[in-house]
């Protein structure tokens, strides 16, 4: 390896690499990426449960955690963008329940057309996201407090208004609602892949089911990564989270960027709300409550700094993958499923320590 020279950059008229940057610097550069820690952790966890439980690596068994990881990945990526932008959204979890209830009640109780019901909940979600952003930017209060308020407001609305309208706390018989099938095409469908040829696949457990949530999640991760790394908006997101005053001084539209981020999180909440509604065919008034912290943990495990300005979308998705794998792996291993929370706590603390170390290295003045 030491004798080979670097291959010349293709036909690009880019200047040659500075000779002071050695080969090892590139490897170090890869290791410094925010998502590397999460990728390693995900691999270890996958291998651990694959070898210690019989069901985890079976295609049929994997279907479950892939679905969970996918819907959490959508939220975690959106929350990660918001955190890179320097804000939190504690109403993100309850938003998934809120949007599901809006669409569910409209369709089952009032017989509203499925697409109208979907668009109305989207509009409601975006409006709440806009309001979150507006309040944070206009009052200058920490988003933690503002969205905590939104969280409780929505939580109350989810219960009280739902009871007021349909006299119960969850939407039932959703599958019988007119238009369910059309909506399910988009949000509740799945493909079955026969993987029984895999050497470790047991007979009868060789079919992998991929729900549409996974495709949505992949799309969200790809778009978010593209936006973050390769667009002006991505540059602005890093800047408003890293140093808001500086960003404003050089002409970055801080208000629009931040409000846009809150609306993106609300959009993701709506998307997950729809995916969950059409897959499970029910919406509870308590859906999503408590999950807002899981999203934040996924983002932090994926390398996002709690203070903003640093992180990655792929990392957040890997954080969600870890969450999905551990949640299901614990069940397959026959442990008490409540150990998941303990595990989350340990992961969070570990990740925060690693991230802070990375940050202090990056900021160290020579």
């Amino acid at each position, binding site marked *: 390896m030491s004798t080979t020279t670097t291959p010349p950059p293709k036909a690009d008229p880019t200047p040659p690499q500075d000779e002071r940057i050695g080969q090892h610097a590139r490897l170090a550069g890869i290791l410094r990426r925010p998502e590397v820690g999460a990728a390693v952790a995900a691999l270890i966890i996958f291998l651990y449960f694959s070898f210690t439980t019989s069901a985890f690596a079976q295609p049929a068994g994997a279907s479950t955690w892939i679905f969970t990881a996918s819907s959490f990945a959508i939220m975690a990526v959106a929350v990660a963008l918001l955190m890179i932008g320097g804000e939190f959204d504690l109403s993100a979890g309850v938003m998934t329940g809120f949007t599901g209830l809006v669409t569910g009640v409209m369709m089952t109780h009032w017989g509203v057309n499925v697409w109208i019901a979907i668009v109305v909940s989207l509009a409601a979600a975006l409006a709440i996201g806009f309001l979150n952003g507006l309040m944070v930017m206009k009052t200058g209060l920490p988003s933690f407090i503002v969205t905590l308020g939104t969280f409780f407001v929505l939580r109350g609305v989810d219960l009280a208004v739902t009871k007021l309208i349909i006299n119960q706390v969850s939407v039932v018989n959703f599958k019988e609602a007119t238009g369910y099938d059309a909506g399910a095409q988009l949000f509740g469908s799945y493909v079955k892949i026969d993987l029984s040829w895999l050497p470790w696949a047991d007979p009868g457990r060789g079919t992998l089911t991929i729900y549409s949530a996974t495709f949505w999640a992949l799309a969200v991760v790809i778009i978010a990564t593209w936006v973050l790394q390769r667009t002006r908006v991505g540059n602005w997101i890093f*800047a408003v989270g*890293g140093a808001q005053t*500086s960003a404003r*001084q050089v002409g970055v539209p801080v208000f629009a960027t931040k409000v846009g981020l809150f609306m993106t999180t609300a959009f993701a909440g709506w998307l997950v709300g729809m995916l969950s509604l059409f897959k499970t065919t029910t919406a509870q008034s308590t859906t999503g409550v408590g999950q807002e912290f899981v999203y934040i943990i996924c983002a932090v495990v994926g390398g996002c700094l709690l203070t903003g300005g*640093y992180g990655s979308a792929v990392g957040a998705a890997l954080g969600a993958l870890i969450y999905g794998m551990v949640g299901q792996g614990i069940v397959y291993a026959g442990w008490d499923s409540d150990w998941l929370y303990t595990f989350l706590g340990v992961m969070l603390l570990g990740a925060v320590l690693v991230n802070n170390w990375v940050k202090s290295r*990056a900021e160290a003045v020579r």
Partner: protein
Amino acid sequence: MSQTNSSGGQTVETGTGDTATLPPPGTSIIEVTDIGKSYGSVIALRDVTTTVKAGEVTCVLGDNGAGKSTFIKILAGAHGHTSGTFVVDGGERHFSSPREALALGIATVYQDLAVVPLMPVWRNFFLGSEMTKGAGPVRRLDVAKMKQISKAELAAMGIDLRDVDQPIGTLSGGERQCVAIARAVYFGARVLILDEPTAALGVRQSGVVLKYIAKARDRGLGVIFITHNPHHAYPVGDRFMILRRGRSMGNFPKAEMTLDELVQMMAGGTELEALSHELAREMPDSDIAKSMEEEVETLGVAAEPVRSEGGKHA
């Protein structure tokens, strides 16, 4: 955006080629007359008059709380003025956002340099004015070009970075200052507002920054140099405007002022003397009292013989 000359020579003139838009040296770019700013009943600044000409350095001097920040915020468009007139290129203006000032070529390098420490140098260099290629959904950052230009522009300013991908927080204070100045110059600044660029720097680094101020001036930019240090201002300044307690103490061309007069005016003559006496009384052995007394003496602040009970030399 004009193509840069990346030959990396010693002169900064290899920059953008945007100098074509600069007016001939000596032309007034900014003229403020009796400008003022009040926040409700608090008057932060009043009756300030000065001019900024192409190819000249206008120094704004003042102690902490003298109104320097308010003044530059008006010029930079961060705050609107509440009285007086603010003329740019012969037309009266009232800025409501920094973007309007930037559009007229008035660029500000703030004390905190407006950089984002965790972001790479090249992303900081182009922040807010990113170069893109492609259109519609594939419109994307032109990363290679931005890296190349930022490296070349910094080299032209005398900073040779190994890697423009390193976070800007890893650079030294002077280097970061120069990145900020190079950025403003590259983006076609005609007027460069420098907010206390030497405040946090050591002697050597301050000298480097003063050199860049002179370079920018020689390229035909109008420079507004805000500082509280007359020794930094005098060598590069062409015009001095002194602020004290939100008021202008006058606006003098260099020909009408010596360094000593500037220091004296800036420190507030008799106030400095009174302070020196007080210090000598309270702490007769302290170094600061002694040095201040010397300063007062050398400046001849105390022209009248008031050296009475306070004149004890420890």
